[in-house]
């Protein structure tokens, strides 16, 4: 804690308290040293989980055939995920069994991302590498399972690694790339895309507010204050932008998960 108060002191004296990578490696605050240790990000994650599930379960419990305003809003979102993400990509027959999975992923990623701009939380619950990775691994398991179920293990690998209609010398390059894609690139790209977006978003917004704090509150001089006000505007703009990114990343994650799973199915219908 000493270094933190030092930092505050230093910030006040010599410059803005800029966010850094260490924001994403916060100290453990509960059950330190055990496998159940909780730090700031995990606390945000737990709180977000409790809130999201409470709200959704209450909404589901009270769901009626003729929806109220709130239920209609939730249903709009669920309908959107089902029709515009899942059914759009894989069609209703194949897609129906993946609706709960993709909905879970979309809603969780979206709500966790939004935590990054909720005052008091101020960090996305997806801003530690394991959370996006967990989602990515779930997708990974699902598209392997679907592929093995449809083609058998050998059939699936042949389909993916030695695609038909390609002259054989191409396989020398294509097959390792495909294998890499299937085993590593897909889950890693899903993970890193989401994680890095959340990290960058947090750094961007926090930087704006750090400069706002420094120039507008802690510094003197009219010109400097105007600069601080501009940083505040920037902070507001980027906060709105982060809302958009939260939804966009949830959408991208969900649609890529759907596409990956769909690719494990035979093409010819």
């Amino acid at each position, binding site marked *: 804690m000493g*270094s*933190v108060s030092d930092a505050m002191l230093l910030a006040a004296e010599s410059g803005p308290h800029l966010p*850094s990578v260490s924001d994403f*490696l916060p100290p453990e605050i509960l059950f330190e040293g055990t496998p159940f240790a909780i730090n700031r990000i*995990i606390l945000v994650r737990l709180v977000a989980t409790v809130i999201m599930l409470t709200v959704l*379960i209450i909404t589901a419990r009270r769901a009626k055939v003729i929806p109220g305003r709130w239920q209609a809003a939730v*249903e709009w979102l669920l309908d959107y995920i089902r029709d515009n993400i899942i059914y759009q990509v894989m069609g209703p027959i194949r897609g129906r069994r993946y609706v709960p999975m993709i909905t879970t992923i979309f809603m969780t990623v979206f709500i966790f991302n939004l935590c990054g701009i909720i005052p008091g939380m101020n960090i996305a619950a997806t801003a530690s*590498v*394991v959370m996006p*990775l967990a989602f990515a691994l779930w997708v990974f398991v699902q598209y392997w399972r679907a592929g093995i179920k449809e083609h058998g293990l050998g059939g699936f690998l042949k389909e993916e690694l030695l695609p038909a209609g390609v002259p054989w010398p191409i396989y020398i390059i294509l097959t390792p790339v495909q294998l890499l894609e299937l085993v590593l690139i897909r889950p890693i790209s899903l993970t890193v895309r989401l994680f890095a977006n959340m990290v960058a978003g947090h750094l961007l917004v926090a930087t704006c507010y750090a400069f706002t704090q420094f120039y507008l509150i802690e510094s003197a001089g009219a010109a400097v204050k105007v600069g601080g006000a501009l940083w505040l505007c920037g902070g507001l703009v980027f906060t709105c932008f982060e809302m958009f990114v939260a939804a966009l990343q949830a959408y991208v994650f969900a649609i890529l998960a759907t596409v990956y799973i769909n690719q494990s199915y035979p093409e010819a219908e």
Partner: protein
Amino acid sequence: MPLAEEEVSGIALFIPEIYDIVWSLVVLIVIAVAFYVVIMPKFQAVFDERAARIEGGIAKAEQAQREAEDTKRKYEEQLSQARVEASKIRDDARSEASHIIADARSRAESEAEQITANAQRAIESQQQQAMVSLKGEIGTLATALAGKILGAKLQDNATQSAMIDQMIADLDDDKQ
């Protein structure tokens, strides 16, 4: 900026802590179970029920429309039947009326004929009577007249009876 924070490398972000793994999985499993067991089935059920109700409503409306059309067709049939019946009744009435008129006319004609015939007969019988009485009177008158004209000539009985016989013979000849 404190130096300690500067030293943290970006790579560290990608090295997962065990507790992070634990809590990520706990959270993910809890959320997934909630979605799979509670939230999605409930919403799915609501969606399905709504769809069923809408489809049921549409079916009901279609049935109502069909019934309405049936009723309309039945009504129209009845209407046209009634029209046909009405015109038939009118025709019957018209023909009956003409029958009645014709009957009445023929009855009147026959009655008139009968009346005419009766009158004729009465006239003839009266004529006969008149004729008979006239014949009697003519005999007497003729005798008297002849007596007056002849006068003296007829004073002898022989001439008188011969003349009367002669006259009666003539009358009988006339009559035959």
